[in-house]
C-alpha cells in the first residue's frame, strides 16, 4: 500500500464508498470472495472498468486481493469499518459506570460540603 497521510486515506475510503457500483461489489463480496470475472457478471461493464473499481476499493482498504496467479480472488475486508466502531464503544459502559460512581461520591461529599460552608 502506498504511503498516504491519514486524511488522504480517509478521503479515499469515503470516495470509494460514494459509488453505487462499488457498493454493489462490496455487497457481493459480503457473501464470499469472488474473482474479477465473477464480480463483473452482474454489471454491464467491461473487465477493465470493473478492475478499476476494485483497485479503488483496494486502495481504500475495503477489499483485499489474493496473490494466486491471474485469478487473484477479491474478498471483503471489513476490518477497517468494524474496528472503528468497536474499541470506543467498549469504553462507553466503563465511563458511564465511572460517572455513576462520581455522582454517588459527590452525594457522599455533599453533607461535608454543607458543613464546610456553614463553618465559613
Amino acid at each position, binding site marked *: 500500500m502506498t504511503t498516504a*497521510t491519514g486524511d488522504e486515506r*480517509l478521503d479515499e475510503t469515503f470516495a470509494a464508498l460514494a459509488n453505487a457500483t462499488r457498493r454493489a461489489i462490496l455487497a457481493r463480496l459480503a457473501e464470499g470472495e469472488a474473482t474479477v470475472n465473477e464480480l463483473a457478471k452482474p454489471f454491464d461493464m467491461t473487465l477493465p472498468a470493473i478492475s478499476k473499481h476494485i483497485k479503488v476499493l483496494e486502495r481504500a482498504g475495503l477489499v483485499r486481493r*489474493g496473490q494466486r496467479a491471474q485469478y487473484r480472488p477479491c474478498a471483503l*475486508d471489513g476490518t477497517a469499518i468494524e474496528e472503528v466502531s468497536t474499541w470506543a464503544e467498549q*469504553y462507553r459502559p466503563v465511563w458511564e459506570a*465511572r460517572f455513576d*460512581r*462520581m455522582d454517588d461520591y459527590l452525594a457522599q461529599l455533599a453533607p461535608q460540603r454543607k458543613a464546610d460552608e456553614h463553618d465559613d
Partner: protein
Amino acid sequence: MTDDNGSQDAVVIERSFDAPVELIWQMWTDPEHVKAWYGPNGVSIPVAKMDVRVGGSRLVCMEVQTPDGPMQMWFTGEYREVVKHERLVYTESMSDENGNVQSPSDLGMPEGHPTTTEVRVQLEDLGGRTKMVMTHAGVPSDSPGAAGWVMALDKLAAHIETHGDR
C-alpha cells in the same frame, strides 16, 4: 472549543452533576478524589500520580484482586491542555509501572485498540451545578481528525502485507 473530531471512533458522554465546577475539576485532578470513582468495585487505585500542567505526566495503577493474587494494570499519559475549571485534555496509554508505553495487543487487549487515546473533559459552570462533556478518542500520530480510521487502515495495510499471499 467544540469537538471537531469527525470520527465515530470516540466515546462522547455528557453529564450534569449537582456540584460546583471547582469540585468537578478536583474529581479529575486530585488523586484522592480520582481514586474514589475511577475504578469499579473490587478495583483499587494504589497509584495515581498527576502532574496537572501542560506537558506534565500522569501514571495510574488499577489493581484487581484475582484468585492468583493482585493483578495490576498501569496507564500513563501526558496533559495536553489544562484550563482550570474549564478544560482538561490528557493522553492515555497502557504502560508498565515505570510509565513505558506498551502496545495494547501485547497486553491482551482486543484487536483495534489504539495505543494512545485522548481524554477531553469540558466543564461548564451552571451556577452550583456543572455540565461535563467527556470525549475519549483514539490518537493517530499524524492526523487528529481521522482517529480510528487511520489506525484501522494502518492495521489493514499491515494485515494485507502479512496475509496477502493466501
